[in-house]
């Protein structure tokens, strides 16, 4: 199986805190790979590393055979035209309306005539259920709507690799179901490669071909959704089933509570 992206022995630290400690990840071409993990483990950081916005301390990141940390600025921008990233925050351009946001990369990177851009944009908006909102400004959208517009924007240019950072946050059950289907069908119809970062374990497992679970800078579980579900690893089980007690701490690393808070 060919890999579209590979992370080899990747280490990365921020403000002296090690976030990744020599992790290995393979993103197979044409598949949906889910990346799960507790809040704050570095899932967003991982996507930023893959897109070349952050540079690793050591190790290598290969995207379609190119070593991202070693690319020149020009080559990096050329590579990025083939990738897309759905930001956790949406990151819509606030000075453009919904239509122009989705049309942005089409206008920047293609010379399509206006009527084709219009059709493409409206189709994208239709698929996220927001064709009727194309005249709205981002400030007039709800959080969930803004995220769906951002999703439409990230699909606009038919990228080869789409990275979704928490696409389901803030969606009601109906739009959640639509988005789950959309991500899967996009991947299959356009033969893209998808990376899905999510906290919604069930949804993520239901549409992915392959899963990685990260915790404390390491990969604690990998395989098909079935293999991951059946794993006996205590850390993994605790995360998947949401138990409060277990090896994974809910707390950010800190001194024991007794040392910081006065005895009651």
């Amino acid at each position, binding site marked *: 199986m060919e890999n579209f992206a590979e992370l080899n022995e990747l280490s990365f630290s921020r403000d002296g805190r090690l976030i990744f400690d020599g992790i290995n990840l393979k993103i197979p071409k044409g598949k949906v790979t889910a990346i799960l993990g507790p809040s704050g483990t570095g899932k967003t950081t991982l996507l930023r590393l893959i*897109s070349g*916005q952050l540079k690793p301390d050591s190790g290598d990141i290969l995207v379609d055979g190119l070593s991202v940390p070693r690319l020149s600025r020009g080559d990096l*921008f*050329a*590579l*990025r*035209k083939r*990738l*897309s*990233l759905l*930001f956790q*925050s949406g*990151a*819509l*351009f*606030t000075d453009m309306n919904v239509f122009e946001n989705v049309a*942005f*990369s089409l*206008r*920047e*990177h293609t010379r399509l005539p206006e009527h084709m851009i219009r059709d493409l944009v409206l189709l994208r908006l239709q698929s996220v259920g927001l064709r009727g909102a194309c005249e709205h400004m981002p400030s007039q959208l709800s959080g969930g709507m803004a995220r769906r517009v951002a999703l439409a924007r990230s699909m606009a*240019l038919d990228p080869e690799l789409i990275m979704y950072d928490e696409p389901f946050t803030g969606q009601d059950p109906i739009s959640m179901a639509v988005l789950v289907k959309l991500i899967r069908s996009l991947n299959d119809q356009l033969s893209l490669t998808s990376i899905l970062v999510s906290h919604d374990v069930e949804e993520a497992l239901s549409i992915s071909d392959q899963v990685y679970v990260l915790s404390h800078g390491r990969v604690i579980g990998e395989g098909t959704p079935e293999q991951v579900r059946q794993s006996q690893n205590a850390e993994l089980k605790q995360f998947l089933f949401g138990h409060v007690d277990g090896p994974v701490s809910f707390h950010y690393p800190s001194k024991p509570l007794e040392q910081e808070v006065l005895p009651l």
Partner: protein
Amino acid sequence: MMVKALMNRIGYLGLWFLNICAAVGRAAWFFTQILSWGAGFKAPFKRLLIQIYQLGVLSLPIILVAGLFVGMVLALQGYHILVSYGSQEAVGQMVALSLLREFSPVMTALLFAGRAGSALTAEIGLMKTTEQLSAMEIMGVDPFKRVMAPRLWGGIITLPLLTLMFSVLGIYGGAFVAVEMLGIYDGSYWGNMQNSVEFYEDIVKGVVKSVVFAVTVSWIAIFHGWNAIPTSQGISRATTATVVQASLAILALDFVLTAVMLGGF
């Protein structure tokens, strides 16, 4: 103990100095990055027009009103100085020369730093905070070219034009005070002015000053926006830094430029 405290102080001083050097280096590198036109002609030109509108047209009211008042004050002050030598007829010449050489470039640049520079910093800082610049980068579009370059060029084009308008309004303001209120013969107000103002010496040199100020203010403003810490407090600090540093830079550069232009060295 004393020695150690002293060494610490010296250490901080050194660190402070190194940080400033690093910031200047970053700003210089940044300048080379944003000094680009972008691909093609039509799209960058359209973006430039938008910036000329944002930075220039929207600054017009404050510039025009300020020019009018500065010209009026200059005429009033000039008249009272000149009248003691009996040469109040030269007030037109005095108003025009002080405006063209000093007041217009400096005052317009200061107002521009407060009105347009702070807005630039806040706008770009907010785009950074809300990850819009990151999003653009990831979509393969360079924000240096797409967002910052048109703003730099917009500033470089508009400030000299605003400066000229400031002068025009100031001269009319001066005429109003001198001719209508103080009773100077309007032929001598305009005639003296035409005889003494030289195109190269006064107008061109004033415009050169304002071009230098335009580059400085726009550069400082855009740099602070891009360099802002992505929080609301970070943006407010960056905005303040823009206004303070741009204003001081204008005044210091004005002295240097004036000295060079008058050949005082």
